[in-house]
């Protein structure tokens, strides 16, 4: 536990974590292309899930869709004060 707290409390290791994440994003997307489109190891169900790096692209698209719909469109419409029903 101590080691974990030290790791997360240290700005230097946090910077490392960010860099590691950046590398992970690139590596995963490339691996996806490699496995599905170069080595043809997977089998898709539709025309679209065999596109290069489908999981990665759709994941990014999904998060953007959800954030835009939830926070930019719906939130202004349905958000009220906590005491709304009192």
């Amino acid at each position: 536990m101590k080691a974990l707290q030290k790791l997360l409390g240290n700005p230097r290791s946090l910077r490392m974590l960010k860099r590691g994440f950046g590398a992970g994003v690139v590596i995963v997307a490339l691996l996806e292309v490699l496995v599905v489109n170069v080595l043809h190891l997977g089998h898709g169900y539709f025309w679209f899930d065999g596109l290069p790096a489908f999981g990665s692209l759709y994941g990014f698209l999904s998060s953007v869709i959800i954030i835009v719909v939830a926070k930019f469109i719906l939130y202004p419409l349905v958000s009220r004060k906590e005491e709304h029903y009192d």
Partner: protein
Amino acid sequence: MIEWLHPGLLLIGGAAAVPFLKGRALQAYLPLLAAVALLDCILMTPGMFGKAQFLGYQLTFGRVDRLSLVFAYVFTLAGVIGFIYALHVKDRLQHIAALIYLGSALGVTFAGDYVVLFIFWELMAFSSVFLVWANRTPESVSAGFRYLLVHVFGGLCLLGGIMLYIGQTGSISFDSMHAFAGSTTFALILIGFILNAAVPPLNAWLPDAYPAATVTGAVFMSAYTTKSAVYVLIRGFAGTEALMWLGAVMAVYGVIYATMENNGRRLLAYHIVSQVGFMVCGIGIGTEMAVNGATAHAFAHIIYKGLLFMGAGAVLYMAGTVKLSELGGLYKTMPLTMIFFLIGGLSIAGAPLMSGFVSKSMTISGAGEQQNSFAFLMLTLASSGTFLSIVLKMTYYMFFGRDAGLQVTEPPRNMLAAMGLASFICIFIGVFPQSLYALLPYPADYAPYTAQHVLDSLGLFFFTTLGFMLFMKKLAPKPGLNLDTDWFYRRLAHAFMGIVRKPVANFEYRVVGEAYDYLIRAAVLFVSRVVNHFETEAVQPAPQSLAAGTNSLGNVLRRLQTGSVHDYAFIMAVGMAALALSYVIWWAQ
């Protein structure tokens, strides 16, 4: 030797002992009783048990087959974990309510007909509401009443459907409702079921009531109501296309609301809606693989959702709040809770080596095999949203982010032990998926760990994180409340009360009260005057004149019996004269 012991009735009956136990004995009793129920389920063999005659119908309390067993296993297992988590709770009301609630969920699972099903169905709603009320705050009392009213409405729809069903078939057996598709019977029973599954627009009771429940009560509630609904939907409505559409929409609906939410336990409640959407969608697709996926997902979901509610409950218990805007930096003081919560989060998101991965991908592949691109894309989108709002948003703002400076420690050891046990199960299922697949209703020949699957998931998570980092500022939680479909009945009730308070009360006082004065009271007075007159003139004199008659007769008799010889001699003389006279009259004739 008893042929078959109903685990639900064992727990409901076992609740009777709770008031007489205290201290260590009670602490040992609760998880042990749930463990005995689990053992009871494990030792069961398939068949039909617990038959009874009632009003000419045959009731079946124990339909034991692969489908009911897998749900019974996970219900009782979650009960063991839940009671370990609740060991420190002194409030016996909560323990009794939880035992009856778990027992009635098992009752629904093993019910072979609609009558038994309905009884346990209602018992489930009426016992679980006490887990909300046990919080004993004004908010929880009113949330509990709303919860109960919504479930009474659903129960009435179900009852109406059952009545029509009995009228049409003359039978009470509960099996596939396919033959009734499109009829009112079908619709009413389906509405009763999907209300408990929290399918929008009948979903708002769930995020309304669960965050109002006690810390330990919410852990139980997260497991049983929605998943027993999933069970009956599999039983009765597998392959109903409408469920596929509703489930796919529901999975995204829950995620969107969760993304806006500030209250941690309400956020998790919206994720129940979303996750049950996966199951409902799988049921709607209806193939063996999709139904297997829905069942596996229900199993995995009960454990990891319980784990998440335990983690959020531990934060609420220690810090006094679970509003994300008031939390932060808890990794320093609650690292174990954070690790367990993160395991729950990775499981629900479906990360490789976690339970959600092996169950969720089965449902999504079920959609893929049916060439159903809508369900496939919606469920994948919901997976991304789950990762976004639980693993990223909730973990970040609870345990990291701005340090809220809360002076807390780890929760009691029993809470940590329960979370540890649930975490172990999540990882065990993720690493050994065949252990779960072996329990599913249909033979499962499915390999979740293909290179493409794993990489697709990793890609999904990494790039969702990228999206999160881009919109981090916008995602910061803010205090507030988001309107859901409960707005309709809460506003309706408000308007109704307004009408009652102002116009109806006035009308009652001014018009009905006055009219009462003139019409009713005047008439009553008139009738009472008539009755009074009759009483004084006719009824009261009657005994008087009767008494007067008796009195004068008595006087006559009294005079006759004077005791004086002269009088008697006179009477005898009169008698003799009368006899002589009558003889003369007779002789003359």
